[in-house]
């Protein structure tokens, strides 16, 4: 038995930290999760709630599918409901070029075993009569789902506690140092912790810890403008996304429509601010009316955004540090960390307990930023 206070300390009580704590605790590890505010109040608690499978970065499918299976099993695994709904996801193309892109996404999805339906104009009109005529084609993936982000992370954290994890809220980690072959942490309340393995999943604040150990990544904090409408009778069904990136929306069973628009806006993690310029709210409102004209008289009742860490190649950092044994990073989820959260937590727990995971994570190594970063086309298009 080591004389560390914990086997593993997790910095950051977002979705990633909560799932990681859950899986590690289930494996009998002595886990402590430290959160500067409260669990699941940042990106993880304010996101759009999409658990989308189609159209992902190809190298992410093994992780993504593993994650979806965990979401599908959420109630049994966690013992609480998080409003998980297998609504399916509808991707819309407005012109031939976009149609071709849809087709290439579909091929990738299918190569990983996903069932993708291809829909033409007539079929769209028949199945979703509220859709505008603008969409010329679409793909539908029935396994895609949605959940309520406000409920998910706290529920997972509670389940982790039931398995023995220790969670400390309102406790920022102020310093992390190497100590022997483990780590020593200092907390804002003066407390100290030591551990053999350290997980850095501090979201948009994660760079400080990485840089402390001689590694870096070009993190850019931002968030998409979001809004919700008043409730009205449930009729939309799937979560709907225009492939031009202008809008993504879904209706929850209570009747409200939730929307995320683009481009994203720079956020300020130091002051904990995620502004939503009203001009972007208006643009998103027009975009929604364009896709679903019958919503034109529907009222927007609240707007918000979040502080998410983006990277220029629009994929996260997940995996062991390249400089420091026992340190693991998982941050920079580029707006799609909700879906892969459970898989990331499971893989991290396997790497820590078993020394390796079956799921391929090479594309997500932090080492890729030692050379010049590749800038994704999405990154250019979807930010100001």
């Amino acid at each position, binding site marked *: 038995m080591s004389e560390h206070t914990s086997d593993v300390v997790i910095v950051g009580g977002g979705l990633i930290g909560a799932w990681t704590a859950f899986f590690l605790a289930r494996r009998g590890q002595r886990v402590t999760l430290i959160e500067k505010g*409260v*669990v699941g*109040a940042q990106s993880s*608690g304010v996101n759009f709630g999409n658990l989308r499978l189609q159209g992902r970065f190809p190298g992410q499918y093994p992780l993504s599918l593993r994650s979806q299976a965990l979401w599908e099993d959420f109630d049994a695994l966690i013992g609480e409901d998080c409003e998980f709904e297998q609504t399916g996801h509808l991707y819309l193309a407005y012109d031939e070029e976009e149609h071709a892109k849809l087709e290439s996404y579909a091929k990738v999805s299918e190569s990983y075993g996903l069932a993708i339906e291809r829909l033409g104009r007539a079929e769209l009109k028949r199945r979703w009569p509220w859709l505008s005529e603008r969409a010329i084609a679409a793909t539908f993936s029935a396994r895609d789902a949605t959940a309520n982000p*406000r*409920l998910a992370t*706290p529920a997972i*954290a*509670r389940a982790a*506690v039931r398995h023995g994890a220790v*969670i400390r*809220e309102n406790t920022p980690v102020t310093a992390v140092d190497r100590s022997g072959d483990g780590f020593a942490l200092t907390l804002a309340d003066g407390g100290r912790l030591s551990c053999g393995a350290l997980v850095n999943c501090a979201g948009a604040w994660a760079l400080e810890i990485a840089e402390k150990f001689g590694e870096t990544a070009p993190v850019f904090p931002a968030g998409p403008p979001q809004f919700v*409408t*008043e409730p009205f009778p449930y009729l939309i069904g799937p979560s709907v996304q225009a492939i031009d990136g202008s809008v993504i929306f879904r209706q929850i069973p209570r009747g409200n429509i939730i929307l995320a628009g683009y481009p994203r806006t720079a956020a300020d993690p130091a002051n904990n601010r995620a502004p*939503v*310029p*009203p*001009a972007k*709210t*208006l*643009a998103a*409102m*027009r*975009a*929604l*009316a*364009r896709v679903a*004209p019958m*919503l*034109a*008289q*529907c*009222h*927007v*009742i*609240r*707007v*918000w955004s979040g502080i998410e860490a983006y990277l220029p190649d629009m994929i996260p950092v997940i995996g062991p540090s390249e400089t420091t044994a026992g340190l693991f990073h998982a941050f920079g989820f580029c707006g799609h960390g909700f879906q892969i959260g459970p898989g990331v937590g499971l893989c991290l727990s396997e790497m820590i307990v078993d020394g390796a995971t079956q799921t391929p994570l090479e594309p997500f190594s932090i080492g890729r930023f030692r050379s010049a970063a590749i800038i994704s086309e999405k990154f250019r298009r979807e930010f100001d």
Partner: protein
Amino acid sequence: MADIVIVGAGPAGISAAETLCAKGLKPVLIDEGARAGGQGYRRPADNLALDMNRLMGSEAGKYAALHRRFEALRAKIDYRPRTLVWAIDGNQLHLLQDGRAATLAFDRLLIASGAMDRVAPLPGWTLPGVFTLGGAQVALKDQGCLIGSRVAFLGSSPLLALAAKQYRDMGADIAVIADTTPFAAKAAALPALLRAPRTLLRGISYMGASLRAGTQMLHGVTPVAVEGEVRVEALLLRDAQGRERRFACDAVALGYGLKPETQLADLAQAEFAYDPDFRLHLPKIDGLGRARPGLYLAGDGVRIGGADAAEASGALAAHAILTDLGQPQDIELVRRLARQVERLRAFQRGLARAFAWPAAQIAALPDSVMLCRCENVTIGDVRMAMAKELGPIEVNRVKAMTRCGMGRCQGRVCGPALQEIVAAGRDGASAGRLRGQAPVKPIALAAAGDPA
């Protein structure tokens, strides 16, 4: 020349515009309503045969004067009625005008957004026939209607008796005037009450008049329920002696004083501080109404003080603007206004003890009571969320977990009661402050313009 925008054409906004105009400035005056005057001095439609002199009683002169002053001002300012400010972004206002979004840049912004009733929930308060006390007055002044034929007035406010008097004069039966603050608390505050500004003195003297007219006026009541199947049929109370009393009625006017409409101040990034007398988080201002450079707050929208204080504080904030623009000021006049505002607001603070917000009664309400009218969240839902491991302990997280305060009204109605449920008997500050978010009122997608 600086672009000055005033939001709110009540007594505060009108006085501010007048003061600026007198110095040769031409402010923009924006109001959501179709007619200037604000809430207290609301002007009925021209075609309504309503005797405002009789309704306004001793305030009739002031009421008429404000509207006269506004008419004289109208052509000299850029007045924009029927215009909602729904968001503020840096030095831009986002407006909704005739169903269309527009923007307006400003150098200096004066927000005089007024107040709304503060209400405590009780079983049955969502039934048709339960309205706010201010709403009962609006029905009368704006529409020439009574909210019912036999009305119960419940809450804690000098305006309960005032409104009941207006209602009786207009032909309503008054079922009861029931105040939750014990009589002893009022007696203790009596010396302060005697220094009351006229309106309130009027309200207080009507308590006496009510009694003489045979209307039941109860103090120290505990509301039990509004009863009815699909509309109000009775109000059930426990009186100060603990006896259950049922009052048949077809409407209930509910009011525990007013609370400032601070959403715009929040979006304009005013700082807030908890005020233990009012048990509310209020924007911080200096003695003249400055909240931060370029942002000024006046009237009931920042501190409840009544119409006279609103007028004086509007003029005062306008003087602050002029000072900040480098214009020489009549120091004596400014001092006098400042003293007046301070005195009137201090009086309201004193009143908060004689007509107390029933924090303890609210904290003791049963789980089954509806708390959030918009999102259908009960007090029990909130308590259950808070009781969970890692459960929320402040209002914004409670909102995230339960949807309480997340609906169309953005917590305007349930916010003060939510605070007491979350504080559960502790200091109100411990519950935190519900943060405001745009839009301050719902806006239709179509307002954003042509989607094509």
